[in-house]
């Protein structure tokens, strides 16, 4: 924790109505975020990380989705209780979002400059010329070559990396307190990924904005996050400082994730260890631990009793019955 508490999510649950019954995509998730801090939410597809992020800004399509319980306290106000106009004043202004597909996150019919200027005009009530000027400045700040002349370009004239830079410029437009980046680099080339993340980190640090980085890439987490929240089956599996999670993972799922990622310090020729089995079907979660069917350490207790999130060290939480056996 580097500063005052900015965002506090408490007991957040989000459900989706489907043909096969109600699916709880996010189940009783809680986390805190300090001003200027970077929190990484990690998990595989369907673990609920994106839905968590969307729920914070109330961008869940309703119906079929519904935030069924919980609180999202941002600067002391519960975002879930605001009316439409109040939440709109927060979106893009105090909390900005970057989506995972830069190729489709920009409107193909409008110029890039117009789209970056839009939030400025919307929230700052700036005159159009000033907003456009600000957009040029923002594009310079995300180091787009030839920034000002790019204002009148259309998105199809940009590469993926350039578009994601434009998206970052758009997110930074109103100097938000919090930026939520939902897998911002998934669709990009590896070399571009590193540039974009470094840029994002640098700019958020400069603006003292907090960052929620949603990713499935543990390499990203190690370099850029202060704290990590590992999600599995819509629940928090483990949460703690990034360094601590790397050094002493206290959940079998986190351990499995790390074993499945290639490392430079690995012996040449050694095999990666995949996590056996399939991600869980959220409409049919087992009664006990959601990870138990794939877990090497599972016991009878894991099958029947759902493990609570318990403290395993300073600022380190794990939802595993056997967390004390895992530390080695």
């Amino acid at each position, binding site marked *: 924790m580097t500063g005052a508490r900015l965002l506090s999510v408490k007991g957040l649950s989000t459900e989706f109505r489907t043909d096969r019954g109600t699916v709880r995509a996010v189940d009783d998730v809680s986390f805190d975020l300090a001003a200027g801090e970077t929190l990484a939410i990690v998990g595989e597809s369907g673990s609920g990380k994106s839905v968590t992020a969307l729920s914070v800004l109330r*961008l869940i399509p309703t119906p079929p989705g519904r935030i069924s319980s919980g609180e999202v306290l941002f600067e002391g106000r519960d975002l879930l209780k605001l009316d439409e106009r109040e939440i709109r004043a927060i979106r893009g202004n105090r909390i900005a*979002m970057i*989506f995972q597909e830069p190729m489709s*996150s920009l409107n193909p019919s409008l110029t890039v400059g117009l789209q970056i200027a*839009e939030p400025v005009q919307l*929230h700052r009530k700036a005159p159009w010329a000033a907003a456009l000027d600000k957009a040029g400045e923002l594009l310079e700040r995300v180091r787009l070559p030839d920034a000002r002349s790019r204002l009148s370009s*259309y998105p199809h004239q940009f590469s993926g990396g350039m578009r994601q830079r434009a998206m970052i410029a*758009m997110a930074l437009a109103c100097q938000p307190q919090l930026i939520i980046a939902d897998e911002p680099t998934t669709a990009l080339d590896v070399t571009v990924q590193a540039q974009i993340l470094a840029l994002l980190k640098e700019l958020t640090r400069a603006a003292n904005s907090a960052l929620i980085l949603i990713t499935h890439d543990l390499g990203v987490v190690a370099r850029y996050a202060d704290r990590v929240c590992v999600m599995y089956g819509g629940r928090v599996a483990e949460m703690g400082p990034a360094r601590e999670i790397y050094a002493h993972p206290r959940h079998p799922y986190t351990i499995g994730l790390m074993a499945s990622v290639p490392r430079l310090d690995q012996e040449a020729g050694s095999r990666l260890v995949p996590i056996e089995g399939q991600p869980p079907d959220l409409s049919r979660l087992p009664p006990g631990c959601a990870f138990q069917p794939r877990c090497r350490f599972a016991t009878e207790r894991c099958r029947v009793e759902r493990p609570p999130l318990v403290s395993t060290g300073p600022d380190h939480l794990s939802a595993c019955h056997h967390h004390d056996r895992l530390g080695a």
Partner: protein
Amino acid sequence: MTSLAHTAPAAAPVRSGLWNFLVRLFRDKPLGAFGFVVCVVFLFCGLFADLLAPYGFNQISPINRLKPPGEKYWFGTDNLGRDMFSRILYGAQLSVIIGLSAAALATVVSVVIGVVSGYLGGKFDMVVQRFVDGWMAFPDLVILIVVVSVVGPGMGPVIVILGLLYGIGGSRIVRGAVLSVRENAYVHAAQSTGASLPRILWKHILPNVMAPVIVLFTTRVGAVILAESGLAFLGLGVPPPAPTWGGMLSGSGRAFMYQGPWLALAPGLCITIVVYAINVFGDALRDLLDPRMRGSR
């Protein structure tokens, strides 16, 4: 904005929008250019019919009845000795007015219903679409005949009825386009920047459904001219002596087809050529207005 001038060579050369458009139209879309030329001629004839027509549209000359096309009467004369060329020009005027205004009305109705219903979805969409279903279940002609017989024929009623008729049906096309556009990430992104509903509809949905809307409009111009001709044919259009193409086709054109085939050929060919030209022009327009195709060649 001085820095912009310095770096201008990096971007595509910016020419005047209309000129640029015309150059691309004639270079890339010869058929569309043909349609464009015909449309311009048609508009020109419609607008300046009073000046261009050598005779009045209702000026009869009994001695020159049923003259075949020739030097004096380019398109011949009808059974009352009226000059067909003049009547075609005045007919173009009526067709321009009816075609453009009814198609414009239809497009506006389609866009409003389609965009709102498609974007909001849910129960609202359900109710609206069931109403559209019900409306479309009636044959067009039945609605037209019923309404015209109630309110009486005339240009105003015909425009409004045709506009509503095609507008409500066409909303299905716009709605379909909106359904696919609203799932795009940039719509979610716009929501996440705090844009209001009208703003999202206006700036993010509408520009991206313009391609089908333009095609819808141009096909509607053609359809409206055809429908008006059909109504006139049944005697429910703009009442005579107003020289509508449909009216000419059904009146003297049909009655005197054997004595003077040009009476049917002239209005018939005009309808065919204009409707075809509008359609191909609309196609070209859709392609050229797509920003993804700008500067691609």
